[in-house]
């Protein structure tokens, strides 16, 4: 995809999504804003895992870094008399920088580590988030940092509700993040990331510095995760360790695996799932005549169970995730069409999706 097409696609998607907000009620718009926030993080994570082959279980911590960066900068600017768009932009940039620096540090460590070590390191990082929040005074421990209430800006106030405005802002940031990631993915950097993922030694022989590419991937991914944290802070108007738990970190990973590693469309599907599945499960259990004690237990855990099962089933049955399954289905359809058309001269098309490293089948091990 050319860069221009990607930009147009990003812009078109944003306009479409903003149009969508007019069809939704405030609560749905709030959910849409959450989806946009998680999308920033899942899109970054899917590029990191799918393209550069590095596994992070700590993206919630990177989101938290962005959230705190956003909230603290915003507060400081408010007391300095800055407001409106400049304040929002400066705070968002600060969020990206804070998360990016943390990501740089992680990436530097990660470039020297194999997958499971990096996963463990990032897991420990997210476990330490409450401890860091408690031990650094400005972060105010479990209570977190509250933002000053910020309504819809003047001229729009008569037209749209707060939730719709928040959804607009969230969608705009997400569009920037995802478009940026798409550009990285399609550009030389993305090519280098895939080269390093598939074979570090070969990549190095081709003149690519694997360590630098891996660190870069981590920084890019962290910046978008930080943007996600900023958006989440903007939408919920507060940031606290309770919002960035190990569970969220694991769910982000579930979302990108379910969506399909490396696929930005999959990341979007995953983000939608993160927001909608708990709500969907909640709605279903509310309809069932269950005793309140049971509902209480199920509430919050049943969606997790569904996520976990979904993850296992997908890894076992469709390693390409939802996006991969879609591509495979499309390829199958195309193959069928070609078979019914006048006989092709080449060998019959393989029905396997263009998923990498799946096609080369070794003889069955006895």
């Amino acid at each position, binding site marked *: 995809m050319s860069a221009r097409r990607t930009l147009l696609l990003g812009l078109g998607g944003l306009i479409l999504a903003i149009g969508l907000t007019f069809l939704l009620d405030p609560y749905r718009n709030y959910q849409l804003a959450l989806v946009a926030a998680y999308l920033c993080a899942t899109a970054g994570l899917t590029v990191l895992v799918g393209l550069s082959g590095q596994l992070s279980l700590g993206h919630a911590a990177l989101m938290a870094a962005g959230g705190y960066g956003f909230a603290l900068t915003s507060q400081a600017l408010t007391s300095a008399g800055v407001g409106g768009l400049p304040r929002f932009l400066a705070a968002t940039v600060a969020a990206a920088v804070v998360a990016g620096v943390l990501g740089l540090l992680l990436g530097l460590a990660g470039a020297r580590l194999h*997958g499971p070590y990096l996963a463990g390191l990032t*897991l420990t990082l997210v476990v330490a988030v409450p401890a860091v929040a408690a031990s650094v005074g400005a972060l105010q421990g479990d209570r977190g940092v509250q933002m000053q209430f910020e309504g819809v800006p003047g001229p729009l106030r008569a037209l749209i509700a707060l939730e719709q405005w928040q959804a607009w802002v969230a969608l705009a940031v997400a569009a920037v993040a995802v478009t940026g990631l798409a550009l990285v993915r399609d550009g030389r950097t993305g090519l280098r990331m895939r080269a390093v993922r598939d074979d570090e030694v070969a990549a190095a022989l081709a003149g690519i510095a694997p360590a630098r590419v891996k660190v870069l991937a981590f920084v890019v991914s962290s910046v978008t995760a930080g943007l996600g944290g900023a958006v989440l802070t903007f939408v919920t108007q507060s940031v606290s360790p309770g919002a960035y738990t190990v569970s969220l970190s694991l769910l982000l990973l579930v979302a990108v695996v379910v969506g399909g590693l490396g696929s930005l469309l999959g990341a979007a599907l995953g983000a939608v799932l993160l927001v909608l599945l708990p709500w969907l499960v909640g709605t279903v259990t509310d309809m069932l005549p269950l005793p309140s004690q049971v509902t209480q237990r199920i509430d919050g855990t049943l969606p997790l169970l569904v996520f*976990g099962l979904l993850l296992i089933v997908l890894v076992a049955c469709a390693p390409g995730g939802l996006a991969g399954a879609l591509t495979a289905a499309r390829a199958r359809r195309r193959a069928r069409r070609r078979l019914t058309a006048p006989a092709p001269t080449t060998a019959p098309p393989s029905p396997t999706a263009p998923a990498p490293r799946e096609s080369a089948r070794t003889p069955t091990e006895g």
Partner: protein
Amino acid sequence: MDRFVFLLGTGLARGTLFALFALALVLIWRSTRIVNFAAGAMAIVGVYVGVAVTGLTGSYWLGLLATVLAGGLVGLVVERGLLRFASARSPLSGVILAIGLVIVLQSLLGIAFGQQHTPVRAPFDDRPVQVGGVPLLSPYDVFVVVVALGLMAALRLLFVRTTLGLQLRAAAFEPEVSRLLGVRVARMRTVGWVLAAAAASLAAMLAVPKELGLNPHAADMLFVYAFTVAVVGGLDSPGGALLGGLTVGVVMSLVTGYLGATLTPVAVLALLVVVLLVRPSGLFAAAEARRA
């Protein structure tokens, strides 16, 4: 000084538990090249069974035995049922499957038993014994150390002295060559997972009375600490797990005692980062013989 001695003692006692749990991670890493991120969740299933058995029979010892058996059974089911989906081509698929398992097990436990912390009583007095006016280990600490060290010694004997142990090691190092020699590698892998899961369950059962209580996430921190231990000691090195466990236990105990409990996770993170950056193969791993 008294305080230092006390902290050192409790640190060593906790360290043996970390070491036992880390040993479970090392065993699985050696045999399948997977860091079992589900080890904590799997172990806690065994603990729930053990606590239930103790509750039914009134006997702590039957509960302890049930924990080990249930933990081993979970290991068997996971290895046989789930692990065959882990792709050899992608080292990440094992981690991802384990994450899925964590989520499934913890939410199932949450649905079955709720999220609240259920206190679990120690079978022995948990107050430290005073020696010459200095508080030292509690009887329960001593029990924990004896059981954990005893189990580790038994595992070592099994691995070094028996034919089964020889096959377990061979299968872990060179699966294909081992098959050519007649070692049933798939079976050895299952045995390794069962042993590891049983050991981890035991470690979790011993740790629970010293923590907040039993809930589906009760072993999460134990896992994180044990992972740190395994990295400090070297994921390939069972001996390193013991030394690493004692090191991490003492460091944590000193940080908790002098700087406050909230800082412990930060200290563990710092330790992990330093070790990973300075000596990724672990502080106590023997000179890397493998793949040299």
